[in-house]
């Protein structure tokens, strides 16, 4: 049942290893029970199938915008959330997916067929290169204290 007073939170993974999501499930070990009194987790594919991401208060996004699909997804998230937080170094810097941005001609030749076949963007982008980002959480994976500090500001 939707509860009006609770913040609607979505957790999203673009291109990455989902290490920040995993770290987040570890941060949950101590924090989840308390946070659930203030938030409703409406999108988090790692733990639930039923998903709804309209009217979000907070979107936590990990990963890199490397393909057209990623770009469509981040634009859709941006349209549907009040606050968008980039979570971890992938989202902040585009690495390591952005390794390919600095490949030499030989390396690029090896991957060009794949890039074309799966609609990759010419360059892998950090979130702020694709949409407006309201806040960032450093670390690879996210640092627990920094996450709690930033997240609780908006909760």
């Amino acid at each position, binding site marked *: 049942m939707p509860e009006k007073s609770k913040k609607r939170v979505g957790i999203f993974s673009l291109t990455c290893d989902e290490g920040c999501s995993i770290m987040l499930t570890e941060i949950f070990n101590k924090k989840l029970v308390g946070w659930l009194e203030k938030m409703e987790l409406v999108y988090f594919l790692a733990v639930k199938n039923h998903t709804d991401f309209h009217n979000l208060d907070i979107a936590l996004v990990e990963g890199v915008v490397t393909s057209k699909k990623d770009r469509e997804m981040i634009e859709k998230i941006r349209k549907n959330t009040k606050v968008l937080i980039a979570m971890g170094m992938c989202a902040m810097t585009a690495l390591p997916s952005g390794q390919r941005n600095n490949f030499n001609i030989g390396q690029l030749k090896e991957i060009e*067929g794949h890039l074309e076949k799966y609609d990759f963007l010419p360059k892998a982008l950090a979130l702020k290169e694709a949409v407006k980002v309201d806040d960032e959480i450093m670390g690879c994976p996210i640092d627990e204290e920094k996450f709690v500090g930033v997240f609780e500001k908006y909760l």
Partner: protein
Amino acid sequence: MHKCNLDVEISKLSKIEGHADLDIKIRDGKLEEVNLKVMENVRFFNQAAVGMNANAVPQLVSRICGTCSIAHLTGCIEAVEKTLGILPSEQTMLLRKLTVYSMMIRDHALHLYFFVMPDMLGIDSLLDVPDDKHDLIHDALAVKEAGNNLSELVAGRAVHAPFEQVGGFSREIDAAKVPEIVTQLKNIRPTVLKLIDIFANCDWKFERKTNFVALVTPDFSFLEGKIKSSDGKEIEEKDYWDHLHQVVLPYSQAAGFDFDGKEYMVGALARLNLNKKNLHKSTKRDAAKYLAKFPSENVYDNNLAQAIEILHSIDHSVEILEKNKFVKESPAKPAKLSGKGAGAIEAPRGTLYYALEIEEGKAKSLKLVIPTAQNLVNMKKDVEQIVSGLCATGTDKEELEKKIIFEVSKLIRAYDPCMSCASHFLRVRWK
């Protein structure tokens, strides 16, 4: 029987690691095609590693996977060491066992409680669990936390562990913290026995004759041993690649593999089928009645096998921590700076193989074989058998679609697939 035409599309399968889609095509009431599509975007680690200092490659490939980063780190370290003739000390091997156990505890717990349990309880998410079963959320968090804290103690962190390095660990264990970690591990033991019992009483069943492959280790520590298969093969870790053949899956960003020409399954079920005799003695004592189920061909027993592996990981970790004093050591030195080598370990989802070529300390080539990629062909064939079976029941179209989605998602989850990992493979030449 209804001769229906039906296209089932599952987009972004939930409660697995990473992104996968599944398309199923039914014509005239018969299964025509199953396409299992790994949708995880490739990040080109193989290419990026070339030219890097070999000692730095393990921390890079750790970023292939969030949940089993410790497996990539450890597997790649082993390959670097074997390539350069580095012999890790006895203490380093014990610390590595603890590090891998800490991963198994929290990774298996995440899968069993958060990914599988909701299907058993008929709910969408563990977070929606009814009040009378609320203890399961607390159990899940307590078991994961014990694993997470063991990772922190030994390796610095559960994800992208900083202390585990080529040749040894960069920090010693803080002895003052050991008793607390041991107590915590002992405290979750009854919870894990309860978890084992839950999965032993689960009546899900799916069987199809297949081959099981695993690295068989003398103390079930996932690190050093011989690769064995249920059809009787026994090979050295370094020769594993010679027995694998890549199978291209259309529309997928990952490729599959077969082993000596046959599809096969890797993971906890394969390990228990091939190596249950080497589990820790306390695990064998307290899980005896559940262990009688193995060898098993029921794919859903992969869940039970994971639960038993959590218990083993606790029992062996407690023994290592209680029996040893850890001292400061300097890293083991390389015997040479160039060469070719390979190593295999057991990751949570199965056998993980790394091969490297190093020239004057720099990586010249890198190849890896990921557990989920090895399971893809087997998984696809299982899905085909399930869907064919459901089609033959003559259920009406709407009901059939619902059943296919539920049963197929449930089966795929039992494999605990990791799509972030699966998209990393050798080179495939398109066109």
